[in-house]
């Protein structure tokens, strides 16, 4: 029974990683860059949702709000966080990454790190460094098997949201015109441009989607561990990036699989081996997987042509 509850924790944590990893993997697949600022976009999403909810509960909702009103306020603040992050993603891409489209990948990487520092310090200046206590979007837990197995509603919601996003994104990439453009850009940017695809707006769109997902991930992450501070996004960001590589960077099902596996490994390592070493174990598994399968679990192997 213990095992099952650790597994469920792992799956819900893994779903959060998967949502973040989707942002990394889409941007990598299309713009061929490691967007290290992605973790901080998550944090910004968390802050926007935090302030929106506290604003709603203090001034919009009355003394004794109905459940429907609270739910509406929560959904509203999540949507607001998504809008803010989407705009942020587009602005970051336009100002910092677009001028470097032709530059080497390291230059873009350093710029992304600069953006990450910028976001962390801007948030610290605006909202202070003191950690905020985030109220989970849903509370309570489901009791199964006569109370022996408890699953929090946040965990259920996280998994459900992750599946919805996964299905939605796969359909979008596979069926819509924009999705086709994205796939074309990731195959060959130059050829896509020759076919009349607007590469810049496609990349902007990728950043917009990735950042909107980051906002959702931010809200879920803060509901899972309710401490919000300017550095909240960095470690989950790194782990999600690891998850993206684990599953094969550039591949959307890979990000999903990698995220889930990483979450489960982390939860199991914490429960059965060592809390201190859970990150080390997680990274060790990653190394072993990459040594056996150098392009990740579902990544495409590209043989070098001479």
């Amino acid at each position: 029974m213990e095992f099952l509850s650790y597994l469920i924790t792992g799956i819900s944590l893994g779903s959060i990683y998967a949502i973040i990893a989707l942002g990394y993997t889409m941007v990598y697949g299309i713009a061929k860059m490691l967007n290290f600022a992605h973790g901080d976009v998550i944090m910004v999403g968390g802050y926007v949702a935090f302030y929106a909810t506290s604003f709603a509960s203090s001034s919009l909702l009355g003394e004794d709000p109905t459940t429907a009103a609270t739910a509406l306020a929560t959904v509203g603040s999540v949507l607001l966080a998504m809008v803010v992050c989407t705009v942020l993603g587009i602005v970051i891409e336009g100002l910092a990454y677009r001028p470097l489209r032709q530059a080497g990948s390291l230059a873009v990487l350093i710029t992304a790190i600069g953006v990450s520092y910028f976001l962390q310090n801007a948030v610290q200046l605006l909202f202070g460094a003191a950690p905020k206590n985030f109220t989970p979007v849903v509370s309570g837990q489901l009791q199964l098997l006569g109370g022996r197995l408890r699953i929090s509603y946040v965990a259920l919601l996280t998994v459900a949201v992750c599946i919805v996003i996964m299905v939605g994104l796969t359909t979008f990439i596979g069926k819509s015109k924009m999705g086709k453009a994205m796939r074309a850009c990731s195959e060959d940017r130059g050829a896509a441009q020759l076919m009349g695809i607007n590469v810049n707006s496609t990349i902007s769109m990728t950043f917009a989607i990735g950042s909107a997902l980051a906002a959702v991930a931010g809200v879920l992450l803060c509901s899972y561990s309710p401490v919000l501070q300017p550095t909240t996004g960095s470690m989950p960001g790194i782990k999600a990036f690891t998850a993206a590589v684990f599953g094969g960077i550039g591949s959307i099902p890979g990000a999903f699989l990698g995220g889930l596996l990483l979450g489960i490994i982390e939860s199991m390592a914490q429960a059965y081996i060592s809390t201190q070493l859970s990150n080390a174990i997680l990274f060790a598994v990653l190394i072993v997987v990459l040594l056996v399968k150098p392009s990740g679990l579902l990544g495409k192997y590209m043989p070098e042509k001479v």
Partner: protein
Amino acid sequence: MQKAGKSVKRIKSLAKVDYITYLGVIIAFIVMTVLQSRGMLSRSVSGMLVPICCYICMAVSLNLTVGILGELSLGHAGFMSVGVFSGVITAMSLQSAIPNELVRMIIAIVAGAFFAAIVGLIVGIPVLRLRGDYLAIVTLAFGEIIKDLINCLLVGWDENGLHIALNFDGTKTMESLGLSENGIEIIKGAQGATGNSRIATFTMGFVLVMITLVVVLNLIRSRTGRAVMAIRDNRIAAESVGLNITKYKLIAFVTSAALAGAAGALFGMNYSNVTAAQFDFNASILVLVYVVLGGLGNIWGSIVATVVLYVLPEALREYSDYRMLLYAIILILVMLVTNNPTLRSALDILGKHLGRGKQNDAEGGAVS
């Protein structure tokens, strides 16, 4: 013939750049020492001298991996961390055996370099089989693993020798080492090493920078260095002319790790407290920023970038709250200005107007 003449000229100009680099470091050292002896340096500036030397060694050695070998490493601080803690352990446990601080410091630095080289070898053999971003993520992973392992490390010393324990399950404390009464607690898990004797000096930092420069510059200009650069430029072509890829990659990677370990040992002996958490992913990134801003493969560029970027946050201290924000903005702007084709050409035109052409393109533009 003309071509051969040109390449000879190019090698000569490269040698010239090397000598200027040595000369610049020596002059900077003399100036700082004179200023320090006359008491013209504020406390904060003199406190920065040793860390700057350490970070110069870090940047130059990372440049060997990233610029010369052409592999992106995101775990360089991990090697520094190995150097810090093996250096501190060595220095602290030899405290009674070797009273002379200088000798102890040198032994500690050698130990730091040695252990970092061993870890570099262990990391390098599997890692260097991977390519590109996968290699980057694995170096990142190794850096984090090293950090977590050192966080669990408990080390003490008494007459019977070293006592080492690994606190995997969070149940062990310093008591479980079973130290005798006059034992010294050296590393206390996540608290790190506390109560170190601060024996690092600026002179030693300068010597270490010079050693690093001699090692790296001679390596680059040697047959081995040319082989490493050939692998960077075209791995398949290099392999087809009979170069042993793994061997040369390992030489560069392990040298880089050993130098980082030596820098770490000096760094550790400059502070009374060091924790493993200081040498995380962000520390690796910091050094990478120095290397990229200084120019990949450009050694003197790394030195200048390190000094400027290390001093910059301190110089911005009067804008206390805004300084990291300003640092981030400056970082982004510098990257945009130096890498955007439009801005770059505008900058070049400006440079020509000022009568200074881009002489250093051969050096700085070694890697695209």
